[in-house]
């Protein structure tokens, strides 16, 4: 029940705010923040109750009940060591965002908070769903609150940005829906993901290839992988700060999560065959995103393009077929959520003061805003992968795994590693222009961070340092789940070895025939 409570508690907040219309703004904010905080606290139970020796779905948190029986769909949710962290990232970022948006919304505060909380439920559902139909419902349901967040509380060109965002995503979703339907019939009219992991292996290769791309393109758009990325800068620039944080922090991870959860394990053969193409796109994204970020005049666009570059690293790692690469890719999803989330928060805070995001309008902020400058520096260093902070651990593992794994040529890794240089170029150049120099009259009148803003940022900083210095609690919980993915990908040719993997990771119960090998223990 724990998982269901976590997923639907925010929805309860939505209903509460909807029912109690006409409340004072402070009450609305209080309810929203309270609900989000409680959700986060409850979700910590997932972390403490997590058994890291179990490979695959954690039996303690798994729920499986019939839902629409005529359709063959179940309400089946659960988490493993990969989704655990994305769930926690979501429950962590939501209260941070609510606090960050405390004073930024003047009109329609209730709607704003409702959208945020509804979005949280959608995102959590995506990370927990183990039924393709349920997954698709959550996947699509996220679009609506996001549509409102950008479309109502966004900037000047918000309508263009929103339509672009929705159309891009819907194109991908349409392809994925076709794929899901094919798998449904393949799976004896069932949407159960876990049984599919085995049955999908018997799909003829030509079909598997098409299915792989149906899913992959949907995810690649979300990531976004070059050349499907042009919705992202527009969406970020037009979105309110909170929207940008959620977008960069969690929504982009839907794409990379989808790749590990669906593309790789369901169609390992096709994934492996097309790895050169995908890795080429990832490497282009890394370099291209960095180069274009370098010449952006707008802070938000710069950070947006830097995301294209960073997510390129994640995709590279996920396709490395190596433990370090895939685990690094998963960790880097969290890291990117923290560092880029923090950067968007910081940009938002400065925007609220200066009403500009143009880099040329700034300069010398370090003088009058030393705390802001310090935190900005930490987020910057995290983003460029300085050892001791979180970004390094992820990037290092990704590059190491990609180099050592045999999935693709080492030349890709050499090219990708130039992204490490370029990241320093664009981030430090931006930092210099914004923070250093002598402040002009307007900039020297800007006040430093308020206690509320510090409360927003310090938790982010805590995790940025924590993962950099002592990532073990994070890595150890992922390890077994990543191992399964590696085995699924590497040994796609011989399913027999897949069973060996089960036995290795199995706890007590003998295997029941209809359970897949990802599934160690049912309820």
């Amino acid at each position, binding site marked *: 029940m724990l998982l269901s409570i976590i997923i639907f508690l925010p929805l309860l907040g939505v209903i509460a705010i909807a029912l109690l219309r006409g409340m004072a703004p402070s009450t609305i904010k209080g309810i929203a923040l309270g609900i989000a905080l409680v959700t986060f606290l409850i979700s910590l139970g997932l972390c403490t109750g997590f058994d890291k020796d179990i490979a695959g779905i954690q039996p303690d948190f798994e729920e499986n009940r019939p839902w629409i029986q005529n359709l063959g769909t179940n309400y089946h949710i659960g988490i493993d060591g990969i989704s655990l962290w994305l769930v926690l990232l979501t429950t962590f970022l939501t209260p941070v965002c609510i606090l960050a948006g405390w004073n930024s919304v003047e009109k329609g505060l209730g709607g704003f908070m409702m959208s945020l909380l509804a979005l949280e439920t959608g995102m959590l559902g995506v990370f927990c769903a183990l039924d393709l139909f349920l997954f698709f419902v959550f996947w699509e349901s996220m679009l609506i609150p996001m549509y409102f967040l950008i479309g109502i509380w966004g900037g000047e060109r918000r309508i263009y940005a929103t339509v*672009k965002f929705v159309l*891009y995503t819907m194109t991908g979703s349409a392809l994925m829906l076709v794929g899901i339907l094919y798998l449904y019939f393949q799976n004896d009219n069932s949407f159960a993901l876990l049984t599919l992991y085995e049955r999908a292996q018997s799909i003829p290769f030509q079909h598997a290839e098409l299915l792989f791309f149906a899913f992959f393109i949907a995810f690649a758009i979300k990531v976004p992988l070059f050349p499907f990325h042009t919705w992202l800068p527009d969406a970020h620039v037009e979105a309110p700060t909170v929207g940008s944080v959620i977008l960069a922090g969690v929504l982009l991870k839907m794409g990379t999560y989808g790749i590990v959860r669906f593309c790789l394990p369901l169609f390992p053969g096709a994934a492996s065959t097309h790895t050169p193409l995908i890795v080429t796109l990832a490497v282009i994204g890394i370099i291209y995103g960095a180069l*274009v970020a370098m010449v952006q005049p707008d802070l938000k666009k710069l950070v947006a393009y830097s995301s294209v570059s960073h997510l390129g690293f994640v995709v590279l790692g996920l396709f490395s077929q190596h433990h370090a690469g895939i685990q690094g890719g998963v960790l880097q999803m969290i890291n990117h959520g923290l560092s880029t989330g923090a950067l968007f928060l910081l940009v938002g805070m400065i925007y609220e003061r200066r009403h500009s995001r143009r880099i040329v309008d700034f300069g010398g902020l370090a003088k009058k805003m030393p705390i802001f400058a310090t935190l900005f520096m930490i987020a910057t260093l995290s983003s460029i992968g300085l*050892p001791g902070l979180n970004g390094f651990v992820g990037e290092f593992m990704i590059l*190491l795994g990609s*180099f050592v794994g045999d999935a693709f040529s080492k030349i890709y890794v050499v090219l990708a*590693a130039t992204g490490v240089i370029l990241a320093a170029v664009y981030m430090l*150049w931006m930092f210099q222009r914004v923070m250093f120099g002598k402040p002009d009259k307007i900039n020297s009148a800007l006040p430093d961070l308020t206690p509320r803003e510090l409360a927003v940022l310090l938790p982010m900083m805590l995790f940025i340092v924590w993962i950099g210095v002592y990532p073990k609690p994070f890595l*150890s919980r992922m390890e077994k789940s990543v191992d399964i993915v590696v085995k699924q990908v590497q040994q796609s040719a011989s399913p027999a070895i897949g069973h060996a993997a089960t036995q290795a990771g199995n706890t007590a119960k003998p295997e029941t025939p209809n359970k897949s090998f990802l599934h160690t223990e049912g309820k």
Partner: protein
Amino acid sequence: MSRELIVILLISPLLGFLINGLFGKFLKGNEKLSGWIGALAVFVSFICSIVAFAHVHGGEKLEGEAGILYSWIQGESFSFNIGFHVDALTTIMLLVITGIGFIIHVYSIGYMHGDAGYARYFAYLNLFVFAMLILVVGNNYVMMFVGWEGVGLCSYLLIGFWYDKQSATDAGKKAFIVNRIGDFGFLLGMFTLFAAFGSLDFSAIFGNAEAGNSQQIFGVNALVVATLLLFVGAIGKSAQIPLYVWLPDAMEGPTPVSALIHAATMVTAGVYMVARSAVLYELAHTGQVVAWIGILTAFFAATIALTQNDIKRILAYSTVSQLGYMFVGVGVGAYASGIFHLMTHAFFKGLMFLAAGSVMHAMVNELDMRKMGGLRAKMPITHWTFLIGALAIAGFPFLSGFWSKDEILHSVWGYNKAIYIIGLMTAFLTAFYMFRLIFVTFYGKSRVESNIASHLHESPAIMWVPLVILAIPSAVIGILLGWGGHGSVFHHFTATVFPKAHAESAGNVVLFMIISAIVGIAGIAFAWARYRSRHPSAQPGAGLHKLIANKYYVDELYNSLFVQPIKNVSHYLLWRVVDTGIIDGIVNAVAGIIRLIGGTLRRLQTGVVQTYIVSMVVGIVLFLAYYLFVK
């Protein structure tokens, strides 16, 4: 020796950083306290270093399992620890870092007096010491890399310390980015080692180095690839050709920073790395690349130093040049000699930078020596200590630089005569440019502007005492530790760490010493003849002089070859054409077409019933016609 000792060694400067960094604001009224907290933090590390040295001297070592503190990055098929490796090489580095580091902290208390960012300065400086210590105590390459990038960050922060100055922040950024180019090589070098050994621990790699020698990467011997890539990192960090360009600019930072980071410690990290990886360089035979890059850099930088008039820039090019010597040493396999020169250089170059800071202090931040002259009368201590440093670097007999430089040159003779000749020429140039600086600055008639001249003064005790303390080892440490060449105290102490030097005792030791001494003294004599009572003209030179005085236009070359093209391609081609033009063009075109189709189809749904009936009838008629006549 216990891990706890090393933990205290590391934690102390980290604490200092946190105290000054977090609470510096509250110490504002009492800047001395900030400074002494910083200095004390390093002093504690210095004590720990002495204890560690005593243990190692007594035959102990900290390595392998015993050194592991905790498991850092770990997964199914890889494991990287935070752990320590302490042997003779480590303790030499520790003593240099914390010893000279402490003296420079003390000096800074006086030098930075009254600066608005006083606490911030000491916070950064302590963070630097912490990172530098991590670099040398790590028991694996990843930890070395952590320190490697950490010192780079501190260098960036301290070069750009006066951040309202554009030139300072430009220099800081340049330092970081150029270093990152080197780090890119270091990263790939680590990956290559991991591919060959499945680990990045020193014990695992050096113990199985032979096995790694049979591996191939990119169709080439893995050790060759790995050592060369790691050396790319060293080229960046230790400012060698072609990545030396950041170091002269780094002089924008406060002068004690130049002394500590850009002369005594951080820039020598590359030399340390090669010496630490000696086993690999031996097997891969890549030392000759190291030696050649080193000697070319030594010569090239020395020529630039001949033409500069800014005291700190002369010292900076001199540092680049001397680092070249160190690479020659470790490159030809004379690891102990290379590290010995690293140590003596740390003393005398640190000393000269601090003395230059003392001159700046008196001259109200003037650095152009053409505006000085005759300073020795007003600043006797600064003059004498600077002179000792200059004599040491010039290779004047029996001062520290004489011993260490001679050892390197001696080893080179048996390795490659061409490198030896260039090395000797560089030694001559070194003596010449250094005494050009001494004579123009401290001798001759005073050219100091009258408003400054009136209050020219010797620096306060908190600054001159450190000068004197550094002058002593600069003078005597060579003869104490280097007497007897390969049989010296220093070689004996490091013998457990390094493979035996191959070029041992080729030729007569005394003869080599005499040649080195003559060359050094000749350089001094030439400078005496030319600059004793003259100073460089303000007129820009022509021809070769102009080329060299403009540093061979390397910065300009890099700018037009790399920086501008990348910027332009990114802006115009990638962003404007590819992103906005092509990709978004297609996206918007598709959207436009769909809208067009939708718009057309929409017209069919007029809502007028008659139209629907007409089209229905037409449809039925066509349908029937098809079946009746065509079928």
